[in-house]
């Protein structure tokens, strides 16, 4: 790796002030599994001048269950979330997503905040030494439109720019399905509104903003959640498609549903039509299939990725069936 300065932040305020003093030329490092890969490959035109280590901030690694719900610190390792008995029981989709993220080693290193702030994995974007100066790096075009786009968006690109790289997080759909909020050093953001695509950006966070905590509302009576991931290898791969569903059942019928897919669109994709479709119905093979079918009508696959539509449809159906009371 090229040279950079390294700063240990002792408090959140210190980390924010470091970020401010470097004026957007510094990066925050927590687990580092995404950031160091990017730096080793030098995929970006600008190499960070400094890394600000937030692992030295002591009070950001915790899981707390209260009457109102669940609070998870930004630096909580994914493995700790996957193994937490309370989360496995009440926030099933979250534990399942954590358990299926990356490899065991990366789950021991990677944090929840790092997972949702991770960068895209598009192979043009990630090509070493900034070989493809694409839209997301401030360049002029998306190379996936004419190139190999088998792992790209099936629901279109960004309206104004046309980047087709999918969001690769496994935790993001679980967060959205469970209606979590993301607390930062400045504000509280609903997980639905947390993701945003722009040049060198996957979230709405400002350059001097740091994620500090995740808040989950307590699951309502009769609610169930489930997460399924489809990837080439079970052990380590990023998702081709993943899906998290959370359903509140009442008297044998669906009262409320939240369904979120990821790996299929430039940001986590709420399957709003499928949610509407399943509401008020009894979950069975037929109704789940009908709700999942709405995915197909919305999809606009590219030349190499039509197969993902079928996978998305199947995952929506299976997660709905798994949430049956």
């Amino acid at each position, binding site marked *: *790796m*090229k*040279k*950079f*300065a*390294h700063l*240990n932040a002792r408090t959140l305020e210190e980390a924010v002030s470091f970020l401010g003093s470097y004026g957007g030329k510094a990066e925050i*490092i927590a687990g*580092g*599994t995404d950031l*160091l*890969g990017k730096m*080793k*490959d030098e995929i970006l035109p600008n190499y960070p001048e400094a*890394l600000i*280590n937030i*692992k*030295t901030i002591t009070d950001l690694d915790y899981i707390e269950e209260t009457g109102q719900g669940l609070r998870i610190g930004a630096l909580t*390792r994914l*493995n700790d979330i996957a193994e937490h008995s309370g989360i496995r029981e009440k926030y099933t989709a979250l534990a399942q997503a954590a358990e299926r993220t*990356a*490899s*065991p*080693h*990366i789950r*021991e*290193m990677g944090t929840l905040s790092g997972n949702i702030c991770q960068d895209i994995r598009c192979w043009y974007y990630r090509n070493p030494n900034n070989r493809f100066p694409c839209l997301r790096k401030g360049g002029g075009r998306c190379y996936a439109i004419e190139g190999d786009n088998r792992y790209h968006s099936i629901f279109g690109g960004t309206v104004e720019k046309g980047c087709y790289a999918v969001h690769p997080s496994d935790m993001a759909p679980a967060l959205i399905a469970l209606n979590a909020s993301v607390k930062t050093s400045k504000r509280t953001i609903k997980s639905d509104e947390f993701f945003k695509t722009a040049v060198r950006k996957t979230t709405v966070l400002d350059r001097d903003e740091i994620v500090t905590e995740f808040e989950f509302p307590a699951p309502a009576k009769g609610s169930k959640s489930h997460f399924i991931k489809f990837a080439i290898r*079970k*052990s*380590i791969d990023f998702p081709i498609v993943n899906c998290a569903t959370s359903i509140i059942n009442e008297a044998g019928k669906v009262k409320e549903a939240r369904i979120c897919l990821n790996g299929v669109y430039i940001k986590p994709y709420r399957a709003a039509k499928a949610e509407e479709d399943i509401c008020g119905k009894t979950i069975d093979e037929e109704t789940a299939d009908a709700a999942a079918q709405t995915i197909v009508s919305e999809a606009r696959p590219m030349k190499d990725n039509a197969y993902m539509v079928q996978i998305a449809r199947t995952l929506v159906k299976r997660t709905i069936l798994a949430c049956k009371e």
Partner: protein
Amino acid sequence: MEKHAYTCPYCSETFDALENLKSHMLQAHKTDPIPRPEGVIRLTVNGEEHSIRVEPEWTLYYVVHDILGLTGVKLFCDRGACGACTVILNGRSVLSCMTLAIECDGMTVETAEGIANKNHPLVENYVKHHCMQCGYCTPGFVVTSKALLDKNPNPSAEEVQQALAGNLCRCGTYPQHTKAVLETAQQLAEQGKEAKK
């Protein structure tokens, strides 16, 4: 020597022995009384304490393998995808190629050498079950297995497979690892029982 020779630079309290001043500063001001030069980290590797000056861009792999000469830590993908560089860092099995050494100050590292020096039965069982062909990935597997057994002394075959899922073996020795780890778990349990008697 004067009786109150040691004065705390923060609160001017005086002490008659350096040791007392040190413990006072650690407790009351949470700082090291003798500041270390910038970039020097303290690392306990396989029970041995080291003080090493590191650059920010050095990975833990580079320090353990190239500086300390513990060549059991292997580099293959250098991108956190293969598990060959696994070490146990403060009880967690992590990838040393994706860990910055400068962030490991005060931590404990265990490598394959440390496990072998302790005569851990895992090593014997790896030989017995032929868990290697070329052997390049083996130390990574051994370290990951050791971390698993530390955490879960009685794993099922499935749990072993899951714990080793992040280690790649190009020779395809996967089925043997499960056997070796399960046999080790059994032996350790028996040893534990005998020790109790």
